[in-house]
Every structure is written in C-alpha cells, then in structure tokens.
C-alpha cells in the first residue's frame, strides 16, 4: 500500500525531470501555458473582486492546480464531453468559454454563463460540450458514465471525462460510477484530482487505501501522474482517451497536486503545515511550464502581459454588465422546447487538427434520426 503522505517529494526547482517524448508541438506547449496563465489571472482578478465585495457568496479557486484541468481538457476532442469541478476553471477555458462571461458569472451578472442562477465555478456552457457541476462533487462521475454509455450505444468514437477530488472518493456515487463504467467497459476517463485536503480533512482521514488502487478492482487501470506537470497530465489523459476509443474501457488518472489556497476565500488554512505549502510552492505548475516555454524561445513575459491585459479587459466588460432582472428568477425551471443536446467544444491540441479519423460534428445516428 502506498503511504498517504503528500506526493511527490524531493527537489523541484531547476531540477525538472527530463520530459518524456511528447505529442505536443511547441505551439501546444505554449497554449498549455497560456491557458494556465489565463486561469490564474482570472481567479486572481476574481479574488480581488470578491475582497471588494463584488462577488457575492463565497469564492473558490484552483490556485496551484491549473495543470490538472488544463492538461486533461487539452487531451479531449471537440465531440468529447466534460464534467469539470470547482478547481477546474482551466477546462472551461480550453473548451472556449470567454473570460468575461466567467468574471460576470462570479459577480452574478446577467451576462454570466448561468445568468446569475448559480455562482462561482458552478457552470458549464452546453454549447461547448461541458456539463456544469453540482456541489455534491462525485455526482458528475455518474453523469459522465451515462454520456459514455450513450456514445457506446450509438457506436460513436467519443469519450466522456469527469474530474473528482480526494474527498469525493468517499461518497457512494464514486463507487457506483466506477463500478458501472468497469462492468460496461465504457469510454470514460476519471481524473482524480488529489489536492491533499477536502476542505480541512487530510487524506489520512479520507481513505485507508489510496483510491487509485481501487481502479484495478473495478476492472480497469489506475495511473498516478504529477498533477503539477501539465504535459504529464495531458499525456496520461491522452493515453486514457486512446484506451477508451479502442474499446478498452475506463481509466482512473490520479493527478497528485496541492490546493494552495483555502477551500474557499474565507478559509485561512490553519490546518495545513506551512512547510507543506512551501514544498508545493516550489513545484508551481505555471513556473514549470514557463521554463519549458522559455527554453523554446518564447517571450514568457510578453505572454503574461497579453493574458493580464485580456483579463483586465474582460473584468472591465463584466463589471459594466447589468445584474439580472429579478423577474427572471422564476423563469426557465422547465424546458419548453425540444431538448437540445450538448454542442461541441474547442479542442485546441494540434493533434486533433492533424489527425484523420476524428468524426465530424453532429454525425450521431440520433441526431440524424431527429432530423
């Protein structure tokens, strides 16, 4: 059994492990960095807005975990479908949600993704193939499993991806989803974002056996990857997706990372040993990718400045957006038109553009049956 201490340990700064051979061209590697920078800049801006009283309720971010959502989402094709959680803003960015809609979402504005109906990262843009999360975190594992079931039923080469945290592994839905996916060998990828704490509860109080080991008993592989290395996360999820497309069933990818902020903005993290934070601060996923980009000759400072300017413009636009009309509060509980399935999202990885065999959008037999 693996120890339940935070992993990995050992030196990080200036001693990055050598990169494995990668499917990422230089433009991809820069795009991964840009998406992580964008996530961090949006969340930093939103945290400031929260402190200024412009974000109602609470505020959650994924500071330090950017590589997990960005790397995993980057491995997914346009017709794949995603279920990110509240540390996974990067997935929405990769799929193409505009920063201004996200900042408006935090502030409860009419132009936010949920038009003020839900807050913080509780959103998904159906047009981009993303289902928004609920606060009962493992629920979406079942939803992703169902999407994969539909793909298989229709004979489509598509994959569903859902994230969950270490705390979610204690809930029954985690078991129900993974067992079901294993029984039916479904094309679904589960990313377990192990960030060491579920609110204040450390891993040792959450499980007796590392949950990645459970994958085997559900009948599929579980792999552990450095969750602070965006390219490693991409590679692991890419491999899991390939397995799924080949009909070999699900994979559990455990991305080991650290929640560098509190559970939410109110949380001072007094329960986290400072030395643990210091150790993980030295493994910052963005700094690591910046070193790679710099080695490729990229002007990282210019990239950062461009991202910061984009976020500042997005914030200005969001701040100018109106609040929702109170009369809208009781509308839209029920759908009144024919249900519209999720649309296709952005899939910026160069491999999708280069590769033949990605089926065209909207080619499902069901879509044809409706038409």
């Amino acid at each position, binding site marked *: 059994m693996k120890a339940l201490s935070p992993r990995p340990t050992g030196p990080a700064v200036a001693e990055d492990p050598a990169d494995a051979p990668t499917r990422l061209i230089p433009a991809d590697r820069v795009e991964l960095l840009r998406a992580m920078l964008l996530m961090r800049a949006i969340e930093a801006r939103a945290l400031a807005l929260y402190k200024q009283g412009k974000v109602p309720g609470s505020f959650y971010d994924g500071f330090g975990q950017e590589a997990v959502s960005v790397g995993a989402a980057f491995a997914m094709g346009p017709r794949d479908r995603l279920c990110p959680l509240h540390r996974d803003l990067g997935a929405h960015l990769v799929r193409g949600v505009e920063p201004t809609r996200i900042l408006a979402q935090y502030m409860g504005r009419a132009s936010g993704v949920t038009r003020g109906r*839900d807050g913080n990262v509780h959103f998904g843009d*159906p047009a981009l193939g993303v289902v928004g999360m609920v606060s009962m975190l493992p629920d979406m*594992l079942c*939803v992703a499993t*169902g999407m994969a*079931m539909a793909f298989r039923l229709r004979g489509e080469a598509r994959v569903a991806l859902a994230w969950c945290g270490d705390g979610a592994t204690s809930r029954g839905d985690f078991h*129900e989803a993974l067992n079901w996916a294993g029984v039916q060998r479904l094309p679904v990828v589960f990313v377990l974002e192990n960030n060491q704490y579920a609110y204040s509860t450390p891993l040792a109080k959450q499980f007796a056996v590392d949950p990645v080991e459970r994958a085997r008993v559900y009948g599929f592989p579980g792999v552990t990857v450095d969750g602070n290395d965006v390219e490693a996360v991409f590679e692991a999820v890419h491999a899991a997706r390939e397995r799924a497309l080949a009909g070999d069933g699900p994979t559990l990818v455990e991305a080991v990372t650290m929640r560098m902020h509190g559970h939410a903005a109110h949380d001072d993290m007094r329960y986290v040993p400072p030395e643990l934070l210091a150790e993980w601060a030295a493994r910052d996923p963005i700094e690591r990718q910046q070193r790679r980009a710099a080695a490729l000759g990229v002007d990282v400072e210019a990239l950062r400045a461009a991202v910061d300017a984009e976020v500042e413009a997005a914030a200005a636009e969001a701040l100018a957006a109106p609040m929702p009309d109170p009369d809208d509060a009781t509308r839209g509980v029920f759908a009144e038109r024919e*249900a519209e399935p999720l649309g296709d999202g952005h899939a910026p990885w160069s491999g999708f553009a280069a590769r033949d065999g990605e089926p065209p959008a909207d080619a499902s037999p069901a879509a044809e*049956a409706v038409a």
Partner: protein
Amino acid sequence: MPTMTYLEAISDGLREALRTDERVFVMGEDVGAFGGAFKVTDGFVEEFGEERVIDTPLAEAAIVGTAVGAAVVGMRPVCEMQFADFVACGFDQLVNVAGKTHYRFGLAVPIVVRLPSGGGFSGGPFHSQNPEAWFMHAPGIKVLAPSTPEDAKGLLTAAIRDPNPVVFLEHKHLYRRVKGEVPAGSYETPMTARIARAGEDLTVIAYGAMVHAALEATAPETLDGASVEVLDLRSLVPLDTDAILASVAKTSKVVILDEANETCAAGAQVAALIAEHAFEQLDGPIRRVATPDVPIPFSPPLEQAVLPSVERIRDACRDLLDY
C-alpha cells in the same frame, strides 16, 4: 380498441416508444432477462436487445445519474426503480442534478424515472411508499400519477417526449386489477386533471389508486344518493389548478385523498390552493383523508389500519355532506 391492464398499458406505451424513437432505451435492475420485478419489460430484451434494455448494477444513484448523462447527449432514457421506495438512493441525482440543470444553464434533461409505488400488499416499510411529494417539493421535476390504463400509456408517452425530468408513479395496486380500453399506437395524454365522474354535491380529489377508492366510496347508490364528483389529478407537477378550482366552485365541498403520508402530501398543496383561491366558494371545511405519518407497517391489520380505506373516505364524505 384493445382492453389492457394498467401494467399492459405501461408496457405497450414503453414498447411503442422503443419502436418509434431510437433515442429511447430502458434501464434498471432486472429489467432485461427477467423482464422487471413486475414484468413491465417482459419480452423487451428479445425485441430490442440488451443494448436498449439494460440490466444495470444495483445502483440507483448511478441509474439516475447515467440517465442524465445519456439524456444530455441526445438519448431518451427511461429508468425503472424496482420499487418507488428505492428512489431515495437516487434522490440526490434527481433533485440536484436532473432537476436544476435546465434552470442553471439551459440544458434540458429529458429522462423518465418509473416508480412502482403504493401499498396494500404487506410490502412493509420499504416496498410500499408513495414518494411523489418529495419531488413536488424539488423544482424542475414533473410528477405524473395515472389511474387508468389509457392514461398510463398516454402519460408515459407524454413523459418520454417531454424535455424535462419526469417521475412516473405507477401504482402497484393497479397493475393487474384495473383494466380498460387503450388506444393502439402512440398518443399523449395531457398533463392535466380529468373528471373521473361528474357530480354536483361534493368533490373528491385524488390521483393514482385513490381515484378508484374514491369512485367506490362514492358510488351512486351510496351516500343517500348524493352526487359526488371525482377529480383525477393525473399530474401533480404541473398541477391543474384551474380544474381543481372549477370543481370546487361547482360543488363547494371538497375531500382530498392521499395514500401518501399526510404531512406535506400532494393533497396538502391542493388544500392550500383551495383555501387561498376558493375560500369564498366553500360551504364547509376542506377535509383530507391520508395515511398518518408512520412508516407503512407489514402485518395486514396494521397496514389496513393506516392506508385510507373506502370506509374512511365514505365517512369523510358523509360528514362533509351533512355539514
């Protein structure tokens, strides 16, 4: 028109949906090879194959959750809870995921969850419940409870075609006891109330199995010839407020039946609506007959002591007619 039992009508509606819409599939515990605990899907796996008639793991949260997932990518899943009671295990997925998704970001979730419900068979505390009010209180979920074979088929068809999550309460007591003419082919029954019997002196409002209890308790030869209207709600969400108020305006006296536990039952909402909107038209207090707030006991004399009986209903009607 063919005559069918309530159960056969549900089967017929489901079979018709599978034949005419390839997006429809059914799943649940033992629905395939065994044909379902009550045989609603008997023969389905032979006609439609294991891919569209899916025997699932014993996992109600995942049954509802995977249905949501399949629905949002274009399918029309129809799930069976083996007993309505077991939907408690899938409650979170229904209430928090299925019910709130359209409101939150405009994504419709067209799923149907079939709930074999109701008591009277010594099913005990875990095989006898009527959980409809749980879902009436959860925004975004439609709640249907047919009482006749014709309505069961037509409402199931309407539920499958509806773009929203629908819980479909099929009363086990009606499965093989109630027969009626059922139109062939596909048709939709509107999600509105129906006058099961017109009357002038008093209205009994009921749904599901209680409609039949109401008809028996107020049969023309009983109650000294009083003319009793029986309003069959058929749909609890949406609730046909107009039909309820129209009937009360006509008779001025109302008895409301629930086989469910009394507190916050569907009938409580109906009573509140009448009190608020039709107070001036009443000629007597609103009377309710429901199961007291106890788990449904196993032993026949205990169970019969709590479920609304024809006698209790008749007594309530008589009291109110004499008021």
